[in-house]
């Protein structure tokens, strides 16, 4: 099979999609987390400030989901169909939650009435949390493996998604995003709101550390196939070690109130956890718990070589552009958030 820089094309696409999903986790992660924390702020002004802290960027962050979805569709169409139709009900709820989140942000400021704003505040927090938990649930099930038969058909029921491991991953994702979001907000705010957020950051980091430890243990005990890569390539053990070190660094920087550094580390740990997941899966994308032979590998699922090459070129041209817009956007809205007449 044709290779570029020593890697075959399906592996390249695995990396591209992994990179896009990581980009999505790092970027949308903080605004989803900010959404989950929204109801912890009691005053109207505080709520407006935290909402406007993500105001100009959340839509651009969500684009990474659209691109990652498109890339999965294009690169591994078989997986796209199998995963989405298997998780039919969770994805439908996910889509509805995405709609509610978008309109909550957009509609909240349109009327001054107390009940109106309260309603959208609740809708915003519930949908943000719902999106995070559903993403975590899907991720947890993919790590755990699914009852998939020879025809790549799902043989379980809706209830089989709610296994303890997947639920744990869902809450770990939630804790990660809440930590990530709280650090972002603390960077963007000042005065009393800032002080309040420093407390929230502390609590979130405790919540995350707890989930992180539980997930690590549960993965080692209940999901042995995630560790086979690590056994055959011992140098990969550096990754979980790195994750632990970063975690300690987040705690240290949070305690020292160096929030910019802490934010950089919470970006890295989000990426690190997704890389761990990718390494554990490779070269499969969907793992069958019925029989390992029924798992869907990137080679079985990949599009044609020609298509992968064209799209790699598209990604090579497009990704720097997207990164460019993202940097431009964040640079334009750097610094502490201030309210003005165009704010939400």
């Amino acid at each position: 099979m044709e290779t570029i820089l020593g890697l075959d094309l399906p592996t390249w696409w695995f990396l591209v999609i992994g990179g896009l999903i990581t980009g999505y986790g790092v970027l949308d992660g903080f605004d989803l987390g900010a959404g989950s924390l929204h109801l912890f702020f009691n005053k109207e002004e505080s709520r407006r400030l935290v909402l406007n802290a993500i105001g100009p960027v959340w839509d651009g962050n969500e684009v990474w989901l659209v691109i990652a979805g498109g890339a999965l569709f294009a690169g591994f169409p078989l997986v796209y169909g199998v995963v989405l139709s298997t998780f039919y009900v969770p994805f439908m709820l996910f889509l509805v939650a995405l709609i509610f989140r978008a309109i909550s942000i957009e509609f909240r400021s349109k009327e001054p009435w107390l009940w109106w704003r309260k309603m959208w505040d609740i809708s915003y927090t519930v949908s943000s949390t719902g999106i995070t938990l559903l993403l975590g649930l899907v991720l947890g099930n993919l790590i755990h493996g699914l009852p998939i038969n020879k025809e790549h058909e799902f043989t379980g029921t809706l209830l089989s998604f709610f296994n303890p491991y997947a639920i744990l991953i869902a809450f770990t994702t939630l804790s990660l995003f809440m930590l990530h979001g709280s650090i972002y907000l603390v960077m963007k705010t000042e005065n009393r709101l800032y002080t309040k957020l420093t407390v929230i950051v502390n609590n979130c980091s405790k919540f995350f550390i707890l989930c992180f430890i539980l997930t690590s243990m549960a993965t080692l005990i209940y999901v042995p196939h995630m560790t086979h890569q690590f056994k055959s390539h011992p140098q990969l053990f550096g990754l979980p070690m790195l994750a632990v070190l970063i975690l300690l660094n987040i705690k240290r920087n949070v305690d020292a109130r160096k929030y910019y550094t802490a934010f950089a580390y919470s970006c890295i740990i989000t990426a690190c956890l997704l890389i761990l997941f990718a390494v554990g899966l490779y070269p499969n994308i969907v793992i069958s718990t019925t029989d390992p032979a029924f798992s869907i590998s990137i080679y079985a699922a990949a599009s044609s070589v020609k298509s992968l090459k064209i799209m790699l070129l598209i990604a090579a041209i497009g990704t720097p552009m997207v990164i460019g817009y993202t940097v431009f956007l964040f640079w334009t809205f750097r610094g502490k958030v201030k309210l003005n007449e165009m704010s939400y």
Partner: protein
Amino acid sequence: MPSVEILSRIQFAFTIAFHYIYPPLSIGLGLCLVIMEGLYLKTGLSLYKDITRYWIKIFALIFGIGVATGIVMEFEFGTNWATYSHYVGDIFGSALAAEGIFAFAMESAFLGVLLFGWNRVHKGVHFFSTCMVALGSIFSALWIVIANSWQQTPAGYRIEGHDLKARAVVTDFWEMVFNPSSVDRFSHVIIGSFLAGSFLVMSVAAWYILKDKFAKHAQAMFKVGLSVAVVAALLQLFTGHRSAHYVSKYQPAKLAAMEGHYDSSAVAPMYIVGWVDNKNEKTTGIKIPGGLSFLTHGSFSAPVEGLRATPKEDRPGAVNFVFQMYHLMITIGMILIGLTLLALFLLWRKKLFNQRWLMIIFAWAVLLPQIANQVGWYAAEVGRQPWVVYKLLRTSDALSRKVTSDQVMFSLILFTLVYMLLFTLFIYLLTRKIQHGPDVSDNAEIEYDGYYHDNITYHPTKL
């Protein structure tokens, strides 16, 4: 309970028809915004700044709902049409991915600057962002229409595997992108979108003129809208003809359904209005004899391939529906040309803004391009049935195999409820914004008079 196929088709049709209310408005408004802000930069008049800022707020509302309902479409391919996703992923997936990476990312990032950047960036950078958002929305449409056009007129591919494992694989990327219908269909869609956006601008402006509110702002808005609409309405005649021409060449069964034409050996008329009795394969109505023959072959006496040339199981079933939708679109297109030309003439005669009756028509005319855009797509998509990928994959074979009708019923009910709520809120908030109107700068109206004396012909109190 209805079958999974019926439910999935209803769900897809419903979610995409609902989604399609918004992107054409964004695309058209994007162009209007570029003109408004360009005029502001050129003249420095605060009136143009007022209307730009006003329409940006409405743009944001429309764009937001467009994004939220658009993501649904992307994921529905996988959830409800898994076999289809596998079949077309190699080709359709790449167009969709290109849309995300080249168009949507650009739109969304610059939208942040557009909305929140007034006091943060230089005027020129803000204008640049407006242009990028407008351009991004057009690129979005480009890739999506390319993907859809490939399904209408597949090109640059080869089929690999068979039965359930079969899939289309790209052999020539540019042939796939520029498949026989891409260019014609894209231009038709984009101009339809310009009409949708510009008629919204004119509708709001006409309403203000009728209510005697923001008179000068309204006149300026109306002129921007009209300048886009008059060009677009005329161009649409041309792109519409081009689109019909590709259909006649590559999807003769669809064209035959659009005109209710059955007999291949007969000269084909063009109906102004009519009714198709698909059971007896007969069409009645007011017609131009030989009209379709002339448009397809350039001769009033040439026969045109009819529906009977296609086996029954390969023809669209709802012939009358396709016929009616297609004719409704054309009728509306003609009305739009008449309306915009009339408005242009009256503007030239400096009589436009005191024609109350015409302002009432324009206030309501926002619905016309919306309806035309919707029914045009109904004709195009129902007309190509029973195929989802023309002559390659049947809609009934494209489903997700493991999804049950209970699940689809659940999601269909869910989307129906959510979209009903969404539409109510949208109309409510849009109305509120329109009632509130633009925030008028202190000296906007005085400045505007100073430059454009010829416009002060409007005296609503004297009507």
